[in-house]
């Protein structure tokens, strides 16, 4: 499953699931950068507790060709907050790096890992790091469970473009 696109899985889940199921969706842009040597970024996406520990891992994208897990600690925040405890590849979580462009991820509120979230305040964190490039992390706070439709977005400045979180009740 780790090699199947999470977007595809999300779409399949949506198609199969009952209409109107609550979900959390994420629009994330990997920007085109005018650099001589470009490599797709490693990206970690997770739900953060107020004490900055990881409440739920949502996605980790890294180079799956050969053993490149040695570079996962470069996702510095994710690594220290719990990436270092995670065995990779992990089903439904890890996947290949993504190309420049818009990426949409959808997570069913009633399915793991979101179904395990206790009511409270969280932040969605997206961290990206690029070989011979830079690192950037953005945060979008949100409240759980979903009470009403909500859309929040932040603009990355270097390694990430626009990142938008949509909560559908």
């Amino acid at each position, binding site marked *: 499953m780790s090699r199947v696109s999470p977007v595809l899985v999300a779409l399949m889940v949506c198609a199969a699931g009952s209409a109107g199921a609550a979900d959390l969706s994420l629009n994330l842009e990997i920007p085109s950068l005018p650099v001589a040597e470009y490599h797709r970024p490693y990206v970690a996406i997770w739900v953060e507790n107020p004490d900055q520990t990881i409440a739920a891992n949502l996605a980790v994208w890294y180079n799956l060709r050969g053993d490149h897990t040695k570079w996962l600690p470069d996702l*510095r925040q994710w690594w220290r907050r719990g990436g270092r405890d995670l065995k990779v590849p992990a089903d439904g979580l890890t996947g290949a790096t993504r190309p420049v462009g818009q990426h949409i991820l959808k997570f069913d509120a009633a399915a793991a890992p979101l179904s395990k979230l206790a009511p409270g305040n969280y932040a969605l964190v997206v961290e990206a790091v690029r070989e011979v490039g830079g690192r950037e992390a953005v945060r979008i706070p949100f409240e759980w469970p979903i009470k009403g439709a909500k859309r929040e977005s932040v603009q990355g400045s270097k390694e990430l473009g626009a990142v938008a979180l949509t909560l559908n009740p």
Partner: protein
Amino acid sequence: MNKTSMGIALALVTFAPASFAARAWLLPSQTIVARSGGWVTFDAANSDDLFSFNQGSMPIDALSVTTPDQQPITAQNVAKGRTRSSFDLEIRVPGTYRVAVAGDTVMARWEEEGKPKRWRGMPADMAANIPANAAKLEVEQTQRRVETFVTVGAPTALKTSGVGLELVTTTHPNDLYKGEPAKFQFLLDGKPAPDLEVEIIAGGTRYRDSPEAIVVKTDKQGAFSVTWPQAGYYWLDAAIDDENATVPNVKKRRAAYNATLEVLPQ
């Protein structure tokens, strides 16, 4: 001898016990390694510039590497150069590795027919190397530990040995970040070392005018805290001179400790 050189000579005599040895350090090529493990290279040198190997190499005959499950492992590709020693470690088991050069030696000074003699060696070899009737004999025990830490995957707890001056890593030494406080404790012979001056200096001293040392004192429990102003490698230094030598028939003792710590950006 003019007044100035006399002053210097006096100063040398006064501070002689503290010795002027250059700063001793180990420098790992990285301190955080992914879960699959890998190779880490270390440099070992004595130099006042941190961490530039521009003085002398540090002998690593007394190197000991302890795995997370307290097993010893052997360094590979060990080389001794003029300005640095170096070695590789292949580390695969997840957890924290302690990489240390620790020693317990004695230094003896005496006079023979009016000429000064000195000998440094293992406490067990004292009798064979110091004449029984040595005149003006002065013996000092030196316990020293120069160490650093590397973690594969998630950090694991470190154990102390109860010998000499040691650092208790209340905050894990591979979990240090810019702007965050780290807590440590010093032990001497396994007991808290209170009121001990600790000096912490960031690497790259060649590129600034002042050492910008952070100087802290341990509290009654031997504990201290430091908030890292920048990311990078830091050198930590502390030493105690006392009269509690653990070698029979020796009084004076110097217990010294140095660690190299890597602080990461947020």
